[in-house]
């Protein structure tokens, strides 16, 4: 065996050019697939790091007319926990940011507020100390905290004496009782919490609206997990919980009417279950495209090996003459091919680590940078499987073909009757298949590029030019309503004096940042369910001048004014989508809405055009603007219009606000970055698909060139005779090109047909571009045909340089 491998290695070493190209092609294919798979593995396949994860489920609320899965309210959680018969226990967790004081420094640290039984329910044991317990979760219990392993290492010097130390959160001393195991992040794979606190401390760490929502039965604020009792299935549990949901809807109709409960296995809840299927499809698309590259690489390699087999006919014939059976010859060639695959696969794993880092750099904004996307056993198994499959795909056919030799003709050195590959030869089929696969990859890439263009050129409906955002964390800094309003007035006055600032306004939320606060809005129209129960809708609380500041177009009614304050009836401006939903075919001006737990009618005074507010790609959803003087919102964002580049002005703006109160945490961002982040999906899709498309194109051109170049070599004698008989250069070029044109044509047509069928699977990733966009199809067909013909033309041109004397003498 070792000798066989040594001989195979020697055979490959004898053709370093071929071996290098082959190994690199394979490495690229295996590396790209493995890198994509390592993400799929990290996000979707890795078993949850909990005890008996199959028993764990995530509980979600659903509500009529509100799409998607929602979290639960704390009172509902308490009722489900007390009254169910299917769970051994339920636990809640809430991701939150709390001000952490370390010496003189304040910062916001993110962690989880959890039920006392959270760790026990998951079966997670701290590496140091103890987990939180039910006793910690009793109101009045001393505040305790379990810190993350990373926190312990970076802030507590990994000291065993960290236990018992006091940490200051929101000026409340918490005693460290445990250190979570390394890598433990809680339920979500993308959260990176620093600590876990029992819910008993909620009044100390939740402030303002956060506190209000935590105790509300209507607000769906907390994530809930449960462990099924042994033998209870998901379906049985769901059936058993249904009467409880119905009872909650009857007992608390204002909060729970129209709501029910949905159970999701924990493995499917570790990424936002509402986006999981999108992310999974994106991951599968990436793997599929990487697989396409691998297929093209295999076709290329098979072609190169077939060409090589032609050159090795004498050697193979000789081996047969010396007594080698066909099986032994095939075995030897397969050993070489698998060695090639192994070398490519090995290098592919190295490349996959590099590609993984490259892909990770393209992660969505807001993803933590310490995710564990490791090359674990599953990833390695994938790489090995891909390598073996690759070896089979590209190795078997050439090995079988090569073992079929005309022994006597070769040993007698009879000139081959082959005139340079028949038009229907397997090698041409391979090239046509490569062209077809490339067309598919390039069409997909083209669609994503078109999609990016569309998204970049989309009309936002508001003016994003020279806009900076700054937010001040007043709630965490202990500001009450009066101080908050006072701070905003002072800050507005101060910011307007900064040279280079054209205008400043305030809104409770910026557009397109992905943050989408919603509240229950009950339009008083004809729809009874909407009128009585309402639904969650997006909203913003704004300064009276905000709509003008942002350039939002009013299609009916009026803008807010300074008179929309506490002394006047409350007013709201809605968008066209809400007008259409609540009062279809009617004039909404003068109509009213109500808010949750508030019977005061709020009058619609204006209607704006639909704008791109939450996401660029999303269809316009109902949206409401409320004036700040009538609807207080503690957390607000300064929108600052500058004369020049906003980034240049950000340090000055920060300094001005810090001078008002150095203790307030400030965050700032240039809006261009927000837009860039909003375009992330389109841009990343276009980038990745283009990279895959270019690789596919390159490999295919290499394949076409190799086959055509070999055809020229094999037809040297024929070309020599033609030239000796006086053939013109054009005729010789035509002789070679004809074959290339036919093969490319078949491939392009086949590819376009395949793309027509396959691109519908990427339709949901596209923005205002049809999956069968004729322009994209036409451009790609033209592009591929053009460059393929160029790849044919170079060997064809070389054919005209054949010296008839040398060509004929060589025979």
């Amino acid at each position: 065996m070792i000798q066989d491998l040594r001989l195979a290695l020697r055979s490959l070493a004898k053709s370093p050019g071929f071996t290098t190209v082959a190994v690199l092609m394979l490495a690229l294919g295996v590396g790209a697939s493995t890198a994509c798979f390592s993400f799929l593995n990290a996000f979707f396949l890795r078993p949850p790091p909990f005890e008996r994860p199959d028993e764990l489920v995530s509980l979600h609320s659903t509500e009529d007319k509100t799409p998607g899965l929602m979290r639960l309210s704390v009172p509902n959680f308490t009722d489900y926990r007390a009254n169910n018969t299917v769970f051994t226990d339920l636990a809640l967790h809430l991701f939150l940011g709390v001000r952490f004081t370390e010496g003189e420094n304040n910062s916001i640290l993110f962690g989880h507020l959890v039920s006392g039984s959270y760790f026990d329910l998951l079966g997670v044991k701290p590496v140091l100390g103890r987990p939180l317990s039910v006793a910690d979760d009793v109101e009045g219990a001393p505040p305790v905290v379990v810190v993350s392993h990373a926190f312990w290492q970076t802030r507590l010097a990994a000291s065993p004496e960290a236990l018992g130390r006091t940490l200051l959160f929101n000026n409340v001393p918490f005693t460290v009782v445990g250190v979570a195991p390394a890598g433990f992040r809680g339920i979500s794979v993308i959260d990176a919490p620093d600590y876990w606190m029992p819910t008993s401390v909620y009044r100390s760490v939740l402030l303002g609206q956060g506190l209000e929502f935590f105790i509300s039965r209507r607000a769906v604020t907390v994530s809930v997990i449960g462990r099924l009792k042994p033998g209870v299935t998901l379906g049985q549990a769901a059936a058993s919980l249904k009467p409880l949901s119905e009872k909650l809807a009857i007992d608390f109709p204002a909060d729970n009417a129209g709501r029910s409960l949905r159970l999701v296995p924990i493995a499917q809840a570790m990424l936002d279950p509402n986006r999981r299927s999108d992310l999974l499809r994106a991951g599968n698309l990436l793997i599929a495209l990487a697989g396409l590259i691998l297929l093209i690489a295999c076709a290329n390699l098979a072609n190169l090996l077939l060409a090589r087999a032609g050159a090795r006919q004498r050697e193979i014939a000789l081996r047969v003459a010396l007594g080698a059976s066909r099986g032994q010859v095939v075995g030897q060639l397969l050993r070489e091919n698998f060695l090639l695959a192994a070398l490519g696969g090995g290098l592919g794993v190295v490349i996959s680590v590099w590609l993984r880092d490259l892909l990770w750099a393209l992660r969505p904004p807001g993803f933590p940078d310490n995710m564990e996307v490791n090359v674990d056993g599953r990833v390695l198994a994938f790489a090995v499987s891909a390598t073996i499959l690759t070896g089979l795909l590209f190795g078997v056919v050439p090995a079988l073909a090569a073992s079929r030799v005309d022994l006597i003709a070769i040993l007698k050195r009879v000139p081959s009757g082959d005139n340079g590959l028949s038009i229907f030869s397997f090698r041409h089929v391979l090239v046509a298949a490569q062209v077809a696969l490339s067309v598919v990859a390039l069409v997909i890439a083209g669609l994503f590029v078109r999609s990016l263009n569309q998204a970049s050129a989309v009309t936002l409906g508001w003016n994003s030019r020279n806009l900076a955002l700054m937010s001040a964390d007043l709630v965490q800094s202990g500001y009450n309503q009066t101080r908050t309003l006072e701070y905003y007035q002072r800050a507005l006055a101060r910011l307007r004096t900064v040279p280079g600032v054209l205008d400043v306004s305030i809104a409770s939320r910026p557009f397109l940042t992905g943050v989408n606060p919603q509240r229950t809005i009950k339009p008083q129209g004809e729809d009874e369910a909407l009128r009585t129960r309402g639904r969650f809708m997006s909203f913003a609380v704004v300064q009276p001048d905000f709509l003008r500041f942002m350039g939002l177009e009013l299609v009916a009614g009026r803008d807010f004014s300074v008179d929309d304050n506490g002394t006047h009836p409350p007013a709201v401006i809605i968008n066209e989508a809400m007008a259409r939903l609540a009062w279809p075919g009617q004039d909404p001006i003068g109509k009213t809405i109500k808010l949750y737990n508030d019977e005061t009618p709020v009058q619609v005074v204006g209607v704006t055009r639909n704008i791109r507010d939450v996401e660029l790609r999303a269809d316009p959803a109902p949206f409401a603007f409320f004036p700040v003087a009538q609807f207080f919102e503690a957390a607000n964002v300064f929108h600052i219009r500058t004369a020049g580049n906003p980034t240049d002005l950000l340090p000055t703006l920060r300094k001005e606000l810090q001078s008002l109160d150095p203790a307030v945490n400030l965050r700032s961002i240039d809006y261009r970055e927000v837009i860039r982040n909003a375009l992330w999906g389109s841009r990343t899709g276009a980038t990745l698909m283009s990279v895959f498309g270019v690789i596919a194109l390159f490999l295919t051109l290499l394949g076409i060139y190799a086959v055509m170049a070999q055809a020229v070599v094999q037809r040297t004698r024929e070309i020599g005779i033609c030239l000796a008989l006086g053939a013109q250069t054009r005729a010789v070029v035509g002789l070679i090109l004809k074959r290339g044109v036919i093969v490319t044509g078949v491939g392009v047509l086949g590819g376009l047909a395949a793309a027509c069928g396959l691109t519908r699977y990427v339709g949901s990733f596209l923005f205002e571009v049809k999956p069968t966009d004729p322009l994209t199809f036409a451009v790609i067909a033209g592009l591929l045909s053009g460059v393929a013909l160029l790849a044919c033309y170079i060997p064809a041109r070389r054919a005209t340089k054949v010296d008839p004397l040398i060509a004929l003498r060589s025979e």
Partner: protein
Amino acid sequence: MISLRSVEKIYPLKGGVFYALRNISLEINEGEFVSIMGPSGSGKSTLLHILGLHDSSWHGEFNLLGQPVHQLDKKKRFDLQKKHLGFVFQSYHLLDDLTVYENLEIPLSYRDVPKKERESAVCDVLDRFGIVGKKDLYPNQLSGGQQQLVGVARALIAKPSLILADEPTGNLHSDQGREIMKLFKKLNEEGTTIIQVTHSEENATYGSRVVRLADGMLISK
């Protein structure tokens, strides 16, 4: 040892059939050294490849070592070839990627001879042909005569009872050619049956009998 009865090799062409060999009947006994001669295109190599069991598309009767080749299936012919035949080629046909040692070893490995036995057989042959010092060299590091010496050694290593040589000195200088022919003579004297195809009358004198072909037909035996 070899008995051919009305053996014919036909190529169907558009204008009719072409006889590469026609009505060949021939007996060759064990221990003979037969030279097949004739002009180019007379069918010498074709006959040799039929005798060497490389070619199976022919008509007639062919008995080799008591086995009716014309009735054997592909596998049995292959087994017969592996067990009893050795081939020497005009242009040596050594495997370029393998050393002299490995070139000698390869026919044994195809016969599933255990590694120890292979080592012993190769050492024995290297010794016998006086090429121990060349065992780690590659074919392109040897002269033509040395390469053909290795070719003959390789044909012999599996201890065949019949050696078929296709113009074994065709690519060699006359001195080297003579050395090879002396070697064949010696092997024949030691009991190996040899059939060679040659154009050289001088080479034919080393053998015990000359068989002449012309236009695919036997004109003397």
